[in-house]
Structures are given as C-alpha cells and as structure tokens.
C-alpha cells in the first residue's frame, strides 16, 4: 500500500509503471486520475486545502477498508494540495487484484470515500473571483452503495 499527500506534481506514467512493475501475481490493474477541469475556459486555478495529519489517517483507513473487502495485491493513492492549473493532475488511485471485478470495485470505493471522507477542500479561482466547491449530494449518496 502506498500513500502520498504532496504539493508537487506527479508523473502519472511513471507512477503507473512503477505500480505495475511491483506486482507479482495480479491480473488486473485499475487506475483513476482526477484532472482540474477548466470549466469552459473560466478557470484560472484551483486551490486545494487539506488537514495535515488527518488526511493521511483518513486515507489510510479507507485503504485498509478496501484491502479488507477485496482481494487486492496492492493499492496506491496520490493526492495533491496547493495551487493547480487547468488540466493538471489532482490525484490518482491505483488498485491491483487477481481479477478485474475486485480491481474496479476497490478503485471506485476508494474514489467515493476520498471524495467525501478525506479532508480536502477545493476552491476554484476564476476570472470573476474565487469560490469554494460545494459538496455534491450525489457524492454523499454514492457512499450508500458500499
């Protein structure tokens, strides 16, 4: 299990390759990458605030839960904070399992919980001011399926 909470950019290609290179038995790898959407060119930047310490604990607990529920050989979470430009990579998740159903389910589970239970807050900086991104009811509802 690998968890990185960092301000720096990460190299999606290199991270995916290293994750797969470290596997010994898995048959299925799923990755998710979240990108800053440009909102039709209206977005200048995104600022991500987080709660140091709790972030690592919360994500660690979510990863432990995923490991307990599915036959995972490995999992990876990288999440950035700080100021990001349009189309920059915000975060990634990777899961590896013997079969694809487990790899997909674990990746979706991790994403659903990261969205609503990891202490990050996004602020969109636009041409006409800044605004905190509101949590979506659909994201909270997504948790009920697990």
């Amino acid at each position, binding site marked *: 299990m690998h968890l990185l909470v960092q301000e720096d950019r990460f190299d999606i290609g290199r991270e995916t390759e290293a994750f797969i290179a470290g596997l010994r038995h898995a048959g299925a790898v799923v990755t998710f990458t979240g990108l800053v959407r440009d909102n039709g060119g209206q977005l200048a930047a995104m600022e991500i605030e*987080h*709660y140091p310490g*709790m972030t690592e*604990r*919360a994500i660690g607990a979510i990863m432990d839960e995923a490991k307990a529920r599915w036959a995972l050989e490995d999992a990876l979470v990288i999440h950035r904070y700080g100021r990001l430009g349009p189309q920059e990579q915000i975060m990634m998740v990777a899961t590896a399992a013997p079969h694809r159903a487990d790899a997909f389910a674990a990746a979706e589970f991790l994403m659903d919980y990261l969205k*609503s239970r990891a*202490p990050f*807050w*996004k602020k969109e900086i636009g041409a006409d001011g800044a605004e905190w991104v*509101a949590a979506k009811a659909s994201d909270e509802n997504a948790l009920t399926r697990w």
Partner: protein
Amino acid sequence: MQIDILYFAWVRERIGLPRERVETEAATVADLVAELASREERYALAFADLAALRVALDQELSDFAAPLAGVREIAFFPPMTGG
C-alpha cells in the same frame, strides 16, 4: 481544559484564522460551538448553519453531540471535496 481548534476552507476564512488554542469547560462539541458563537459576530456567522459543517475530534470525524473530555484537537470544516 485547553483545546486546539482548527478551521478549514470557508470556516477558516469566515473566522479569520486557521487555528487557535482556547480554555474551555464545554462538555460537548455543541457546547463549545455555543460558547464560540456568543464570543464574536464572525464566529456566530461561521457556525450559523451546523448542518453545513463537519467536525473532527483528534483527527477522526465525529458529531456535534460528542463529548469533549480528553480531546486535544478539534476541527471545523465544510463537507469535504477531495478526489
């Protein structure tokens, strides 16, 4: 008792500081919130709608009815928007 209070996102902006240490005898989170809200207008504004807030005790999500005994760090913030 002494407790560290942390504020994030618009709660931090509304109150105007990221953290503070307070001396309080509040028994629960709700008691502490009432105490803070009575202190100054900016606190009253930040805590006006508790349904829009989340609370963590010693870095674990909790709720407003939770007791504060033994808690060293409490954080207030809006619903998370990670991922």
